[in-house]
């Protein structure tokens, strides 16, 4: 019955090939992609994790080859063959030397791993924010992200905009994580490891992206019905673009006379109980801030692209797009719907 060992070898090589493919530097992308491979880090803490994880993979791969090889060898070499005599093999009860060896070698390995681990933990968790670091507060909600820039007076949702950090000018972003309801977890694999977002507690984490682009992530702690549709986007700008973005976001909302009708409907219905539009009487905090709604890429925390058509579907009945989300069907007439959507479309 050689097949079982052959299978073992087959599995081993599959695992190794897969691992090589995933960690091979030849595949390192220089821009973020939607394939959020933790072995393609583009930010300082993610790179620190990447380095220690390569060491761990190498050690574990080595152990796998040695022990898996021993197992395969033993199974093949000492299998019972039809021609064998039926006497029992020599009865061996143990060996203190061997026991000593396979106790001490793992302890030494653990020690090495432990030192590397401890170093990385302190590197990542102990990093102090430089004076010009950007500070952002991220608040997890069922099932979307509120993003606040306390120093800039910006409030937005689901898309975290940050400046790129380069060797000349380091611009890390430090995040305060809070939750409005249940536990969530902030995870953008190419930027950093995940940190949980827990109510009645403030967690800290930081990112330092080295490439501009859009980074994708998910809520990584189960938080109820729409946990799957709680996506994150981190949009990393070159320094000057980031300034442009903050300037635009700090503008008051556009008050387009063409959209007055929709504006009136919006303010006359329950929309304002949950949503805020800066500088107006809409000051709800239960749902996302809509001041610059149309500057965002998606609706429903990454559920659908933010187009006029999807927006209309969303406002008519969000439940058709994101079943179970906390925004109800407002039972708007077609006229009201058209007017509100027309108004929302002006919130650029």
């Amino acid at each position, binding site marked *: 019955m050689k097949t079982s060992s052959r*299978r073992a070898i087959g599995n081993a090589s599959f695992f190794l090939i897969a691992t090589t493919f995933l960690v091979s530097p030849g595949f390192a992308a220089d821009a973020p992609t939607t394939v959020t491979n933790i072995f393609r880090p583009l930010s300082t803490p993610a790179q620190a994790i990447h380095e220690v994880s390569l060491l761990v993979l190498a050690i574990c791969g080595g152990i796998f080859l040695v022990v898996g090889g021993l197992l395969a060898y033993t199974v093949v070499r000492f299998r019972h063959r039809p021609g064998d005599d039926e006497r029992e093999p020599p009865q061996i009860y143990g060996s203190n030397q061997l026991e000593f060896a396979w106790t001490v070698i793992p302890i030494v390995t653990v020690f090495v791993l432990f030192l590397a*681990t401890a170093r990385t933990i302190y590197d990542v968790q102990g990093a102090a924010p430089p004076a010009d670091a950007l500070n952002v507060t991220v608040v997890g909600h069922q099932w979307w992200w509120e993003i606040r820039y306390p120093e800039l007076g910006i409030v937005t949702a689901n898309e975290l905009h940050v400046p790129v950090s380069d060797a000349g000018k380091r611009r890390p972003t430090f995040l305060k994580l809070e939750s409005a309801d249940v536990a969530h977890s902030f995870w953008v694999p190419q930027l950093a490891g995940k940190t949980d977002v827990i109510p009645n*507690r403030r967690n800290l984490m930081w990112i330092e992206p080295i490439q501009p682009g859009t980074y994708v992530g998910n809520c990584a702690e189960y938080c109820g019905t729409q946990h799957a549709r709680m996506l994150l986007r981190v949009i990393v700008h070159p320094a000057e673009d980031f300034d442009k973005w903050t300037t635009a976001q700090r503008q008051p909302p556009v008050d387009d006379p063409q959209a007055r009708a929709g504006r009136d409907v919006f303010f006359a219905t329950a929309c304002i109980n949950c949503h805020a539009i800066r500088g107006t009487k809409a000051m709800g905090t239960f749902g996302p801030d809509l001041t610059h709604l149309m500057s965002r890429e998606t609706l429903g925390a990454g559920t659908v692209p933010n187009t006029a058509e999807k927006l209309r579907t969303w406002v008519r009945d969000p439940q058709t797009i994101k079943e179970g989300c906390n925004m109800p069907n407002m039972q708007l007439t077609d006229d009201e719907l058209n007017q509100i959507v027309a108004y929302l479309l002006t919130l650029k």
Partner: protein
Amino acid sequence: MATHDLALSPAAATSLPFTARLHELVVTVDHKKLGLMYIGAGLVFFVVAGSMASLIRMQLALPNNDFIGPDTFNRFFTMHGTAMVFLVGMPIIAGLMNYLVPLMIGARDMAFPRLNAFGFWMFLFGGLLLYFSYLAGPGLSGAGSAPDVGWFAYSPLTGRAFSRGSSTDYWILSLLVSSVGSIVSAINVIATVVCLRCKGMTLMRMPLFVWLMLVVAAMIILALPPLSAAQIMLLLDRFLGARFFDTQAGGSAVLWQHFFWIFGHPEVYVLIIPGFACASEIIPVFSRKPIFGYPIMVGATVTIAFISFGVWAHHMFAVGMSATTNTFFALSTMLVGVPTGIKIFNWLGTMYGGQIRFELPMLFCIAFLFQFLIAGLTGIMLAVAPFDWQLSDSYFVVAHFHYVLIGGLLFTIFAAIYYWYPKAMGRMLNKKLGLWHFWLFLIGFHLTFGPQHISGILGMPRRIYTYDPGRGWEIYNMISSIGVIFQAAGVLCLVANLLWSARRGKPAGDDPWDAWTLEWATTSPPPDYNFETLPEVRSRRPLWDLKHPEDPDWKYE
């Protein structure tokens, strides 16, 4: 038909009317019947919870799939996880303990037979209560159904504000009830091992199986009460306005996590050590050598048990603990790898120089060694706290613990079924059907859970009911779902084999594997009283001594 087939075999039982057989099951206090009832009920729950997992995999086979909606999906993975741990793993382990410990130590029954029956019925009704939530979960408020908070039920998702209806209450109460069952059966095992060993069976002459189950029983007694306590606190929160976990009123969400995992991590070892126990009996017999380094194996097990109570927060590396705390738990977790590694080496040492027979129990054990090696190594990766910040709560973790619990525990349970079924039923399981089971399940298992390592590395979080295309996850999810077909076919072969062989299997005789421990010294199935005269032993392998008077073990021990 040989006379020993008659004693308690189904063949004999079928001659009684159905109601009489049912009555016998309800009133029995016999450790063997209760053991088989535990295993039978566990296998039924296994098929139910496994079917739920299959539906989960069907939903995830394609991106943006509409096969089942989010709420149904969330209930499925909650019920799947809860049932597999509490209604499949725990009872099958309890069943193996119950059936085998008295036989292996040469006793007539457990120390407390009625308590034993009580434990079984607590487990069974606890399990039924959990599934009853599908009917009664909506409660008076008409909200919810089965529990949908995940098997570790993190607060405050379980609070009144976020979990309306009674589903969470069913989760709490059913586990409280079945935990009582687990605790009494653990007490019973300890009392049995301490008090009822036959003449000559010192602690260090007990079969390793008994030693490991003794350790497991001790761990159950220490690990389950924190869970029960936390669940009672949660009940107080939900019904009497206590605020232990109510974060809106100053409670602590992290406190629940500590309570849960201080139970939850030892629980993992409660589940896997019985797997070690079965492997430690089966590997020597089919390698035709005694277990290598018996005292070291005992010591390693006790060490694992000790360390396992100091590693719980490695489930919480991402909750924002201090660097010092993270470092401590990373170290303690890596240290578990040392005694676990020692065990693997000792099993290899047992096989090395032997004459390995590829009977079904051994095939499952070899697969177990290979898979548990992978599970252990991914466990080391997860112990490296920074690596865990990436991997935690991703599909990598899902892959890791399925390699532990299926690749480790379930494969050894299958091995145990093939190994001891002849003893319990008096008939051999069919080998051809067993080989089909082995290969189908082996292939299906690796197809399903191997690729999940990669989807986790590519950033796929666990417990999502769907995902968008373009994240690089499609192919791995598809392969994963295809694997389910093989696994299901394998399980079908097992079920068919269990039913078919009970009537038609080849008669087993007392000792079909030429084994060495006491359960093989009595008839198959054993009589009510187990042994006509209680045996007396002089070494760890009494039947070896009997079969090899010229070269007995007691000369060397």
